[in-house]
């Protein structure tokens, strides 16, 4: 019968397909990062050189931060991620919960100028289970073709001012940064933010401030969304990761404007989930990518500051345009006038509670 022949041939064909995809698996690692322009910068600066040097392959996967997937994989005993780019508070938390492999910082290569790794990395960028690669920041941005720059928003309070700047706002669907923004907009000085957030009244105050714009908010999850929301005219201003806005401006000539007032800067770090099947390779990739040159190379693709001091002098211009990268970094002095560093201890301890409250608040 013809049908059975057909079936037989499909079975054989699919078996072959499975076999080839299994054969590919050797020498592969899965590198997980935040997608879009950021992952692209890592692909150019880390992945491609590493693959060329070692002959191994990298599977790149996107996620939207948080420790949930790592925890689910580790606790369910089925780890498919080999190395993950996480925020500092999440790295600390996951390390405390035993979800990560410990990383010996002394194994990291010295800086290009010969400085020992421990001295070359910026203060606070090396941890038990994590090694930082970049400094990034949460800022807010608007479309200068819709709001003129002269009378555009200047301060974080303007973001919450629906009368002066009517229209939708984009915010990350996560209490982190939003609560800090809300307090700063409510008149709290940058240095006092976490002290006030440590009290129940402070949290109530932050949520109350968020309440004032809740009906006008479009929530985003992936870092690639905010520039898209601005471009589509879905929102008039949105919080975003600074590099994404910069790349939309530099790479796609979008008329976006960044407001640095009240920026919340943070680190991104590499971590290796406990039980990774390719731990050795992942570690090799980690050492390679946090070297002086790859970190400096990444800064020419996206405006995030390298975590090594020795990379600083190598940072030059945007990879295919005449734009100096230095002033675009979160750590440029002009951008730091009114800023906070994300308090990783506060978020490591309170993320769960505040997420729960935040979700109840969203649903209510």
């Amino acid at each position, binding site marked *: 019968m013809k049908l059975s022949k057909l079936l037989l041939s499909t079975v054989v064909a699919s078996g072959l397909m499975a076999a080839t995809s299994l054969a590919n698996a050797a020498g592969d690692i899965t590198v997980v990062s935040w997608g879009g322009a950021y992952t692209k910068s890592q692909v150019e600066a880390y992945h491609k050189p590493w693959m060329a040097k070692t002959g191994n392959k990298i599977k790149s996967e996107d996620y939207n931060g948080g420790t*949930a997937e790592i925890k689910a994989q580790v*606790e369910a005993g089925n780890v498919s991620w080999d190395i993950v780019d996480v925020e500092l508070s999440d790295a600390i938390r996951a390390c405390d919960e*035993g979800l990560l492999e410990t990383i010996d910082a002394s194994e990291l290569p010295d800086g290009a100028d010969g400085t020992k790794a421990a001295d070359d990395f910026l203060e606070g960028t090396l941890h038990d289970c994590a090694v930082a690669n970049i400094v990034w920041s949460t800022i807010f941005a608007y479309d200068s073709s819709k709001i003129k720059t002269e009378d555009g928003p200047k301060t974080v309070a303007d973001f919450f001012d629906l009368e002066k700047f009517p229209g939708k706002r984009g915010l990350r669907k996560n209490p982190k940064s939003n609560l800090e923004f809300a307090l700063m907009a409510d008149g709290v000085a940058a240095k006092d933010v976490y002290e006030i957030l440590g009290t129940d009244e402070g949290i109530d105050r932050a949520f109350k401030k968020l309440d004032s714009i809740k009906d006008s908010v479009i929530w985003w999850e992936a870092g690639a969304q905010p520039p898209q929301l601005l471009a589509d005219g879905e929102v008039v201003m949105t919080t975003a990761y600074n590099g994404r806005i910069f790349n939309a401006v530099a790479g796609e000539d979008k008329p976006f404007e960044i407001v640095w007032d009240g920026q919340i800067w943070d680190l991104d770090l590499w971590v290796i989930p406990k039980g990774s099947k390719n731990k050795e390779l992942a570690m090799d990739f980690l050492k390679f990518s946090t070297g002086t040159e790859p970190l400096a190379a990444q800064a020419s693709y996206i405006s995030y500051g390298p975590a090594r001091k020795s990379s600083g002098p190598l940072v030059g211009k945007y990879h295919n345009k005449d734009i100096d990268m230095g002033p675009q970094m979160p750590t440029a002095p002009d951008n730091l006038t009114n800023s906070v560093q994300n308090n990783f201890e506060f978020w490591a301890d309170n993320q769960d509670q505040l997420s729960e409250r935040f979700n*109840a608040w*969203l*649903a209510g």
Partner: protein
Amino acid sequence: MSETVLAQQNSDAILSTDGIPLKQKLARTTRKLRMRAFLLTLPLVLFLVVSFVLPIGQMLWRSVNNPAGSNVLPVFAELIQDWDEQGLPDEPVFEAFVKDLQNAREKREIGKTVGNLATRVNYEMPGTRSLFTGTGRKINKVTEGPYKEALLKINKKWDDPVIWRTLKRVSRDYTPAFYMAALDHKYDDQGKMVPADDLYQIYVSNFGKTLWMSAIITFFCFILAFPVSYLLSTLPMKASNLLMILVLLPFWTSLLVRTTAWIAILQTEGVINDILVFIGLVANDSRIQMIYNQTGTIISMVHILLPFMILPLYSVMKTIPPSYMRAARSMGGTPINAFRRVYFPQTIPGIAAGTLLVFILSIGFYITPALVGGEDGILISNLIAYHIQKSLNWSLGAALGAILLVIVLVFYWIYNKLVGIDKLSFG
């Protein structure tokens, strides 16, 4: 006892050709046939038990079993059970607690860390997570007794008996706490069941919303399906076959394709808004929000589920002879009366089948609300997925799932009673 003896004893029984009483032979053959029929279904039954029933069973078990307490604090978990809940526990209990914590901190075994314990206690006593993780970081400084004082020195909050009562509850492996949480209840300081704080009451209202939205969706599906099914069942075969394509094509088109299509149509920069702006009904800067809310969920789900209403209705209506209506009319009934008293009652089996099926399917919908529901258009399935994938409160997700499963099974049972599962068909 051999069969021939038996046959001789009942000598008046009718024998089959091989000398066995016919009745017995029949029973044996029937048994063999029953066995054969059953054996045919056996591979699939076994397959489903392994791939489907066991996993769900294990998930239900997880909703009452959460051994985080005794995993992290094995010695303490035993000792605390003898505590009378008055004042603070005794020194040996504190000693066990400190040593268990040190041990957990030392080993950092997966699923047995201070963080796991902190998470578990935090479910029942929100706001205590940092107390546990903070103490965990300092616990190795305690080297000798008295352990009670040492612990209080690390953090004053250990003075609170409520924490120890909660720890006693958490140390038991089986707990109703997650069902309580799923029904918006919690333990109070005395360990009694009370409604949860207003801020955190979201599950019961979401169950309500899920049922209510499913009812609305079912209603709209019915309103839209009835006239179409009637038309299809009364048209000549050729025409109805052609029109049926318009019903079956959406049915065969990917759910994601249809959801994408609705996003393209309904979003603020989408087709409808563009048309409205173009003809001047709506100003360009006040485009209507039709998606990422309940409206979006309802419109797309009605579209997706409509074929599930049309097909059963159509198959029932097709069997109603048109002569009944003509007879009613010729006996002097007005068209409305004839329809109401003669035609409509005969469609009820189809209506029951269609509405129940659509209702059951919409209660469990996940993808469409997740993509077009925004914040207020999400259903209970989305909350379950949130707890399984994001918050990782697996026991709460399982408890919510169990409640949803019970609701669905009740309607499935009603469906089985009213319609019969074997009446299900497509196209």
